[in-house]
Structure formats: structure tokens, C-alpha cells
């Protein structure tokens, strides 16, 4: 374990956090809010710690998968704790555990909130909440890879540990350029959405926060009814962009490289769009009688499906009041999640494809025991190692899931609430059903349960293993 290089990376995380807090600080200045001093205090604090930690460059450049995982996990924990400081200092969320929950919910692009009334919050704090979504969406370390002067092939270990999905591939030979391209696409799509929302007569502040929430597939609303009170145009734009941010960014890169045919052939994106279309149609059928017209029903169905499968968590209507079938469909979509290599969470479509194909392969194996068959994705063979890691991921996923449900059931809430609360946080979605539905919030839980759900959110965002590795004794041993 190379502690000095991890210390160095963590120092840069502090610096990054100080830099990120400049933006809500500016918002506070614009609106003339007193919170500006809170943010300045946080910036100074993070800046000093970051400065001290990065003062000495690490001499030992040894860096491997283990260091990558540990660096990423610790970075996210530091982001969560320092990010919670403005909430605590400003007095918006005085409880430390709740404040950390809210921040983690932001950075992991979950969007679950413990606040019952967000409209009373100052603009700068609202902005900070939404801005953490945008930062957490593409990944903080991916951002650092872009700006940090680090040489050597080891950055790949950082990217592997932070990026979601069963396998990570570079777009171009240089990892720094890859990070730049990813952030470029991200930034461009964000700007397009903001412009489209402004065209729909949305106030600039609302447009920014809404876009940050959908770009990072986060889902913190700035209104108590989330997206319900906005015009149908704004809802459709947001719905479409949520869906777009849930697509594997490699697809957009292929479009940029003028290889549209290859882009359209992406199996994962096709399944993803197919699932969205099928779910939307099915839900529309069941809810048309609630909303009167097929058009309104279709709009609400699409928005909710898009919001849940991308793990964003915006809502235009209280879907907890829908009939059983649409609700169950939504819960199932919670587990599907977005595409790998997107900003969304969940199990990821590509993992599901591999799993479904494995089941098919197994069935074929029963009929033809000597059958030799390789699982393919996008016309390429999926290596046995990848299949194995997907299987192990699923096992770890369900173990943690079941254990979390057990732990938070100590609060004695009903099973639907418990189950969907864990589903909504572990998959980084936001709202669940029952007491944590679109109109409810996570404030009902005790501090202990809040902490469990906080860890679930981090585990879900980092795809379990980076966080679990912190608890391995071998990780901290030198040999």
C-alpha cells in the first residue's frame, strides 16, 4: 500500500472541493445571501488541508489496482464529509448524519432527501445540492485525471475504480484525452439542455439546477413537488435528456467520430431504449384512466420511466398512487439502471444482458451438455473473467441489499418503505415507494438507518468493491 500517493490524491480532492464550492459562493453573492460566509469558511478550510497534503509530491510512484480502489473510496468519503459542511454551518441541516446523507445523496447522484420542505432553503444551498449531482455524475477523479499532472499508466486504475459498468475502455490512447472527451460531451449536453429549458421559459436558476440534476442523473428537486409544477414542454425536455444522459457515452463519442452505424449498433443502448419504450407503453395502458387523455398519461409514463431507469428520481406526479402493475414495473426498473459508462446508477443494462445471456447459455448447455458457446456483446466475445465478475457483483449486490433491508427494518417501518428505500439509495435513484415515495422523504429514518442508507449510496455509486476493500485487512498491510 503506497500511502504517500493516496495522501497526495486526497489532498487534490480537498482542493477540488474548495474549488467546487466557489460556485455556490458566487450564487450566494448574486442573491446577496449571508451563506456566502459559510461557503468562504468551507473553501478556506478545504483549501488549507488540500494545500498541506499536496505540498510534498510523493516520491514513491508505485500505484496499482489496490491503491486505485482505496484512493477512490476514500476520496468519495472525504467529498461527502467536506461537502456536508455548508449544510451544517449554515444551519440548513444541523444534524451531522443527515447533512452527510444529503451530501452523499448529491455526489452519488441519488437525489434522496431528508428535507421535507426544500423551498425554504437559500438559493446558494439549493445550488450546492444540485451542483454536487453534476460533479458526481461523471466522477470527481475522472475530472482530476483531466487536470492533475500525473504520469504513468496508473491513472487507469483510478478510472476503473470510479467508472460504472462491468468493463472500462478508453476512447483514445491517452487517458487524459479520454477524460477530456467525456467531460466535453457532458458539458455540451448540459449546455444544450439549459438552453432548451430557457426556451421553455424556465427561470435561469431553475434551469441550471434542473439540468445539473438530470445531467448527473441525480434528482434533487428545488420544488417540493419535484418537476410537477413545470410546463409539459419542460417535463418532456427533461425526460428526454435524462434518457440521453443514461446512454453509454461511448455511443456519443462514436457519433462524434462520424461512425454513426457503429454507434447505432450498440447492443446495450438498444436494449436500454427498448426497455424504456416497452415500460412506457405498458404503464400508459394502466394509467390512462387516471389522467383522462392518452397524451398526458404517455407523458407522465415516459417521464417516470426515464427518471427511474436512469436513476435520476425526478417526478412529475405521485407515482405511488398508481395501480400495482405500473408501480411494480417502476421498482423493477430501479434495479435495471442505466447503461454502463453513463452517469446513471443501478445494476446497469450491460450486466443484465450478460446475465440473461448466461442463463440462455446454461439452458442450452443442459440440452447439449458438450455445447461450446461464448457469450457475445456488440459482436465481441465477453471474456470469462468479465462474466465471472458480473456474477460476483450480483451476489455481493444482493447480499448487501438484503443486509441493508434487515438493518433499517429496526426502525419498524413497513416492508414496501424499507425495501424501496434501500433500492432507491443503493441504485442511486432517489424516491422509493410508500413513506419514501415522491411526496415523502428520508427524514423518517433514525440516524442509524440514515447511516446505513448513506453507505448504501456510496457502495452503489462506486459499485460495491472499492468500498468493501476498505474493510479488508490485507488492503492496509504492506505485504
Amino acid at each position: 500500500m503506497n500511502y504517500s500517493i493516496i495522501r497526495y490524491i486526497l489532498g487534490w480532492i480537498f482542493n477540488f472541493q474548495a474549488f467546487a464550492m466557489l460556485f455556490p459562493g458566487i450564487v450566494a453573492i448574486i442573491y446577496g445571501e449571508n451563506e456566502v460566509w459559510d461557503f468562504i469558511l468551507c473553501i478556506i478550510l478545504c483549501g488549507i488541508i488540500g494545500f498541506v497534503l499536496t505540498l510534498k509530491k510523493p516520491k514513491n510512484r508505485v500505484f496499482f489496482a489496490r491503491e486505485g480502489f482505496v484512493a477512490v473510496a476514500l476520496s468519495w468519503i472525504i467529498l461527502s464529509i467536506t461537502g456536508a459542511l455548508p449544510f451544517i454551518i449554515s444551519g440548513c441541516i444541523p444534524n451531522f448524519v443527515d447533512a452527510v446523507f444529503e451530501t452523499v445523496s448529491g455526489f452519488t447522484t441519488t437525489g434522496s432527501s431528508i428535507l421535507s420542505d426544500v423551498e425554504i432553503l437559500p438559493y446558494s444551498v439549493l445550488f450546492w445540492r444540485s451542483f454536487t449531482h453534476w460533479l458526481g455524475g461523471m466522477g470527481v477523479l475522472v475530472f482530476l485525471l483531466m487536470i492533475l499532472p500525473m504520469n504513468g499508466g496508473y491513472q487507469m486504475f483510478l478510472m476503473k475504480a470510479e467508472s460504472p459498468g462491468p468493463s472500462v475502455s478508453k476512447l483514445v490512447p491517452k487517458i487524459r484525452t479520454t477524460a477530456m472527451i467525456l467531460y466535453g460531451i457532458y458539458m455540451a449536453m448540459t449546455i444544450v439542455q439549459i438552453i432548451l429549458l430557457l426556451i421553455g421559459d424556465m427561470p435561469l436558476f431553475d434551469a441550471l439546477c434542473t439540468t445539473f440534476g438530470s445531467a448527473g442523473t441525480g434528482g434533487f428537486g428545488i420544488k417540493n413537488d419535484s418537476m410537477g409544477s413545470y410546463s409539459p414542454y419542460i417535463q418532456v425536455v427533461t425526460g428526454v435528456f435524462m434518457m440521453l444522459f443514461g446512454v453509454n457515452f461511448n455511443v456519443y463519442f462514436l457519433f462524434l467520430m462520424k461512425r454513426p452505424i457503429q454507434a447505432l449498433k450498440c447492443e446495450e443502448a438498444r436494449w436500454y431504449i427498448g426497455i424504456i419504450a416497452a415500460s412506457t407503453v405498458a404503464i400508459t395502458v394502466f394509467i390512462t384512466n387516471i389522467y383522462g387523455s392518452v397524451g398526458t398519461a404517455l407523458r407522465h409514463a415516459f417521464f417516470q420511466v426515464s427518471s427511474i431507469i436512469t436513476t435520476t428520481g425526478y417526478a412529475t406526479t405521485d407515482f405511488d398512487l398508481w395501480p400495482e402493475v405500473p408501480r411494480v414495473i417502476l421498482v423493477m426498473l430501479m434495479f435495471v439502471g442505466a447503461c454502463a459508462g453513463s452517469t446513471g446508477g443501478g445494476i446497469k443494462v450491460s450486466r443484465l444482458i450478460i446475465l440473461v445471456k448466461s442463463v440462455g447459455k446454461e439452458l442450452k448447455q443442459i440440452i447439449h451438455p458438450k455445447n461450446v458457446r461464448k457469450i457475445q456483446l456488440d459482436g465481441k466475445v465477453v471474456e470469462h473473467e468479465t462474466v465471472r465478475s458480473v456474477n460476483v457483483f450480483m451476489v455481493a449486490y444482493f447480499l448487501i441489499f438484503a443486509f441493508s433491508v434487515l438493518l433499517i427494518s429496526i426502525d419498524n417501518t413497513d416492508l414496501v418503505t424499507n425495501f424501496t428505500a434501500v433500492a432507491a439509495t443503493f441504485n442511486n435513484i432517489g424516491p422509493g415507494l410508500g413513506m419514501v415515495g415522491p411526496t415523502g422523504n428520508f427524514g423518517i429514518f433514525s440516524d442509524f438507518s440514515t447511516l446505513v442508507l448513506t453507505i448504501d449510496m456510496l457502495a452503489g455509486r462506486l459499485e460495491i468493491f472499492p468500498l468493501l476493500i476498505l474493510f479488508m485487512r490485507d488492503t492496509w498491510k504492506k505485504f
Partner: protein
Amino acid sequence: MNIIIIGCGKVGATLVEQLSAENHNIVIIDIQESKLEAISSTYDVMTLAGNGASFNVQQEAGVRNADLLIAVTGSDELNLLCCVIAKKSGHCNTIARVRNSLYSKEISFIKRQLGISMIINPELTTAMEIAKILRFPSAIKIDTFAKGRAELLKFKLKPEFGLGNMTVQDISDRLKCNILVCGVERGDDVFIPNGNFVLRDNDSVSIMASPKDTAEFFRKIGVVSHRVKTALIIGGGKVGYYLAAQLLDMGIRVRIIELDRARCEQLSELLPKANVICGDGTDQSLLMEEGLPYAQSVISLTGFDEENLLLSLFAMKHSSAKVVAKVNHIAFNDIIGGLDIGSVIYPKYLTANKIIKYVRGAQNSMGSNVETLYKILNNQAEALEFSIRQESAITQTPLMDLNLKSDLLICCINRNGNIIIPRGQDYILPGDTVMVVTTQKGLRDINDILK
């Protein structure tokens, strides 16, 4: 002595080289005539082409008058068969090389039932030698007996151990360790201590114990920092396996890097506690990832001497570990000696030396009941191994009641492979092998230890 050597490989040739220099009459048998030609033109020995397990070939080699037959062909089964046939057709002692790890667990049974005097496993010997080095880098010298189940370990009594001015009896009372102080060198004098002997700081003390008990003894006197706690073994062959198994038994964390996937899986089955890494041991970044700079010992045991030496150089540069390298061919030992690469182990030499030690012991004790004889304590004392074949004066009484000669100590009893460090109330039984340390020369029978 008349010695027959069957098998003219690496060890066979080394044996010929050393034994012919000691004026023994040697007949060497091998199936390949070309190898024999090379030997006969260099050394003054008789050569014989043929299958060493054949009765006729052995007859021709003069097994009837031979004192010793050494079977070191490439095949374990053939070696054992050679020894059995020689035993039946002549009256010679036999030594067989058996390297299969399956058999090595059953060695004492095979030895007893087939009447073989000594079974040697080169890889196991090598692994033991390395384990010895890793166990107590601070020990001056370690001799092993009874296939490594007991060891005679010499160390300098430092003032910080707090054992100065204590009697031998006090030490065993206070530390409650199953060890026996069996020799003390003070200046030029050598003592075989009894219970009332008083130790002084800076004595060179030799103790007899099983490896586990020695470890405990050293822990109790506070030499714990010297012991290696982690080991990085590069190359998971037979030596690597034996070594890892021994180190794990001693509570050392072991990581093995092995290139061959199938062998890795086999190792992982055999050594569930070891951390087996499948990868190229010469890949620097892999070595770094697997913590070479932090390992307390690095042992390179790949099949290539050059690789092992380079790995050692690399490890010396990047870590502060105890570095050990295995070298099979020793053509360049003067150059190797000039390099700063920690310890170098030559398996071929170890094997040959072990056999030669036996030959010398057998020669010394010819016409007596002494199984083996070792010169210890700067050659001023002898360690003699006696086999107890029948009931006699010494088998009926507890040791404390035996009227032993002065400067003589019964320091270890080997009962079917179990090592007993004898106390006053222990008995010697028929079938045991007894190790006696003494400065009295010329003991020929176990009953000679009585006054």
C-alpha cells in the same frame, strides 16, 4: 569403502567427484553410456552401463562386497527398487533419492519397511535449508537431525537475553520450553553441560529442539524481531511448495508467484493459506504490486539460475528483505560469490553433502552401532546417532537413574519420527534412534554411554 552409485545425473556426478577424492572405491551405474564415458575419463572410478535395478547388473558391480549403495536416478520408484534389491542381494547400507512429495510424508514407514538407511529428497532438503536461514538469520549455525525434525542450533548468548549467570536447569524451569542445552563454547573450551552448569553472557550456546520449539524458545528470550514474518517466493516448483508449506507452519505469511496457471491452482489446493499469484515473476511491475519492497524475505526459486540471480539483485536494490536465491548449476560460483545478493543455495551441493556426511559417519562408525556421526562444536565434540535394536541395560531405567559418563548428554530421542527432547523421567525403548552429544571419543555402542 566400496560404494555403488546408480544414476549419473547432477547429484550422481557431484557424489563421484567428492567421494572419489576421499579415496573410496566407486562403481557407477547408468543406463546411458555417453554419460559414463565422461565420468570415467575424469575420475578414477569403475563404470557400468545397465539398469541399476537389475540383480545381474548389481552382481556385476559387486554388490556382495559393497558397503553402500546410493540410488540417485531420475525415478523415485526405480531408486527404491534398486535399494530393495541391493538390500536383499547384499549386506550394504542403502541411500535412495525420493522426491515425490506424496512419498515424502510416508518416508519413515518406507525407510523402516524397506530397510533403507537414508532417503534423501533434494527439494525438501533445499527448502529446509532456506527455511532455516529465514527462521533465525541471527543463529550462527544450524544442523538438522532426523530429517529436520530436530535441530542443533548455535547462537551467541547476548546480555539482553537475560540468561547470563543462570544454570541450565533454571532456564528450562523458567522458560518452560522443550529445549535442551547440549553444548557450550566459551573461548576455546567446549562443555557438555549438566543441569547445574552456569551460562555466561557471550557464550556460544548450542541447543537441541524441534523447529517449533526453537521458535518458541527464541520468542521467549525476545529475539522475535529477527524472525522473518513475510515471504515472497518467486517460482512455485517443488522447492517452492515445500518451503511455503514449512513457512506457513511457522506462521509466516507466504506469497508465491508462479507463471503456470495449472500449477498455481494445484498450489492453491495444497496450500490454502498461501497467497498464490499467477504471473511472471520477472515482471517488475508485478513484483512491485505484490509488495516486494515490503517483504521481509524474497526467495527466488525459478528454474533459471540467471533469473534467480537477477531477481536477487533486484530485491536487494528495492527492499531490505532477507534475499535467498537458488542456483542449480554452479559453474560461476566465484562470480556469484562476488555479488551482493544475500544467500545463495545450491541444491545439488546440499544433496551431495548430506549423502557425504552420511558416508563419513558410516565410515567412522564402521563395526559399531553408530548410525551416523556428526562433528559439532568446532569439531571438538561428536553427535552420534544410535539405533536401539534390542532391550539392554539402558532401556529399563528412566534416564535420571542411568549412570552416564561425564561430558555426555542424551539430547534427543526419535521414536517413529516423533522427536522427544528427553527429561529425567523418560525411557529409551527398543526401536528408538537416540542422539548423544559428547566430547568423549570412540563410543561404539549405546551401552558405552554408561560408566
